[in-house]
């Protein structure tokens, strides 16, 4: 079943007008799938993650539907959405370091949270402890305050809390960007472990780092300026991308072994369009070396091969 997102539009209300942060996004995530959501700042990836669980006050659901396991998620309705949060859809936020109440012992906070959702802490305490063992956290952390934990420990603790009710969908928003490379590897693998053990069914792994996504994602979806540019199996995106943006992006990444002296890489000139008043047609047109007249029309996402979607006239 999994997640089906259909033509989702989420706009931000600002003084200058509506920022069309998410402007017609369609995709699906299957059971047991880790979807890597990649793109540069301002492409709408974080907005997408937030939309699926809790919009902030300035966000408005302007169109499209979200279906999880066959049931429609009322993402625009904060109250009705509450029933799905935590148990069906959960999130590991970007701010994991400060996600826990600094003045409450962690165990107490978890108990408060569970009771607030009408659950008994006692019934879940055993499972909680087993999962702590699994991520190599001592059980004593439940009796500590967040301040007493190191950064990596807090990160693992939040991962355990967020997945405690075995949600169908987990949104992991830039969870490794504040971490060191060695810790990053451990956290990313823990996430895969959670999926393998069935703690979560599907994962949307949001990151700006394609190399990292490639390590753990089954599928990668590249976003550009509020729209999906390309979506395919991870190795296809990396080795045989079809969208010009994906191609340029991948070729601009320095890999260990590539040296300036041997092979000079190049970036993508220009910058993404303003989403206040986005241009019609393909949004990458201004920066695209292949752009032609046809690009003034909006390219539809076409399934060029099975499970390989590209929104480009030249693909």
């Amino acid at each position: 079943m999994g997640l089906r997102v259909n033509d989702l539009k989420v706009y931000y209300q600002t003084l200058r007008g509506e920022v069309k942060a998410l402007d017609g996004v369609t995709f699906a995530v299957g059971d047991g799938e880790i979807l890597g959501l990649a793109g540069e700042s301002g492409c709408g990836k974080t907005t997408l993650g937030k939309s699926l669980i809790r919009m902030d006050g300035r966000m408005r659901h302007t169109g499209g539907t979200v279906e999880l396991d066959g049931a429609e998620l009322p993402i625009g309705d904060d109250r009705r959405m509450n029933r799905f949060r935590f148990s069906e859809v959960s999130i590991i936020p970007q701010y994991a370091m400060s996600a826990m109440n600094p003045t409450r012992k962690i165990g107490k906070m978890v108990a408060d949270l569970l009771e607030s959702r009408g659950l008994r802490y006692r019934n879940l305490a055993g499972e909680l402890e087993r999962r702590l063992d699994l991520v190599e956290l001592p059980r004593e952390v439940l009796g500590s305050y967040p301040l007493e934990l190191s950064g990596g420990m807090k990160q693992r603790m939040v991962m355990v809390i967020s997945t405690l009710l075995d949600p169908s969908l987990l949104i992991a928003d830039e969870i490794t960007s504040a971490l060191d490379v060695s810790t990053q590897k451990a956290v990313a693998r823990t996430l895969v472990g959670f999926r393998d053990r069935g703690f979560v069914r599907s994962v949307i792994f949001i990151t700006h780092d394609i190399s990292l996504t490639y390590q753990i994602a089954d599928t990668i979806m590249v976003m550009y300026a509020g729209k999906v540019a390309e979506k395919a199996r991870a190795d296809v995106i990396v080795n045989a991308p079809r969208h010009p943006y994906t191609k340029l992006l991948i070729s601009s990444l320095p890999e260990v072994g590539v040296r300036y002296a041997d092979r000079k890489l190049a970036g993508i000139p220009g910058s993404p369009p303003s989403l206040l008043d986005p241009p019609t047609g393909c949004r990458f047109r201004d920066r695209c070396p292949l752009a032609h007249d046809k690009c003034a029309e909006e390219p539809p996402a076409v399934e060029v091969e099975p499970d390989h979607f590209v929104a480009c006239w030249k693909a």
Partner: protein
Amino acid sequence: MLKLDAVAKIYKVGAFGGRTLTAVDDVGFEIRSGEVVSLIGESGSGKSTVGRMVLGLTAVTRGSITYDGADIATLPRKAYYRSVQGVFQDPFSCYNPVFKADRVFRMIKEEYFPRVAAPEWDAKIEESLDDVRLNPAQVLGKYPHQLSGGQLQRLLIARALLLDIKFLVADEITSMLDASTRIDVLNLLADLKSRGLGVLFVTHDLSLGNYVSERTVVMHRGHVVEMGLTDKVFTDPRHPYTAKLLSSVPQLTTKWDDTPAVPLDILDYGAAALVEVEPGHLVRQEQSLRSVN
């Protein structure tokens, strides 16, 4: 040109400064003209402290940093900054948000070139912007929030070039930039060495360090654990910490191997010495490799 000799930074912490914290200890290496040296380490390795000490923003507790043979602590500040400059991690934090971005140029003019005539100065700015491939019309007279991170970082490099600098400290200058613009700033840095500049490139990202530098210094917990030609360090790492870092970097060419990550969190570098394992390739020989976690 720039030489660090057994440099240490020790902070006093706690009430009444009772305890001490060693952020950097026994760091020594040299950077020559026309050379990019990358200083690689994770958070808490002390790499940024080294960068700040070279720039004279943080005082050296022990050891010395010399520039062309003179201890920088004794050099007149203003003269030193004429030849040695820095660019930092967060481009948005480098600009005073209440002023226009090109104020960083005006500051240089006021302090260093008060007598230069306006047209001459404008020409100098244009030349400098041209060097960093910025279009003056697009960046002058703008507020920082109207420019992209990449543009802001280039402006800062252009600012340093106004001074005819000989040496640049680049502290994580690309870590806040998007992938598509990051590489252009990095190329710019690599270009500087063709002008005879020495560059200290501080980074946590091994692939970036590998891309631009001739030599690499790897730091861990305030100590240099390995240094040598970038080629050697990356293809033949001799220190377990370097090897671990290399195996953790996500790459597009290979997937992570399945061996579980070995915790190697705390090493005791107390009495260990740097040993030359081959010409120019030094590795710290930890006598007691204690894994404490």
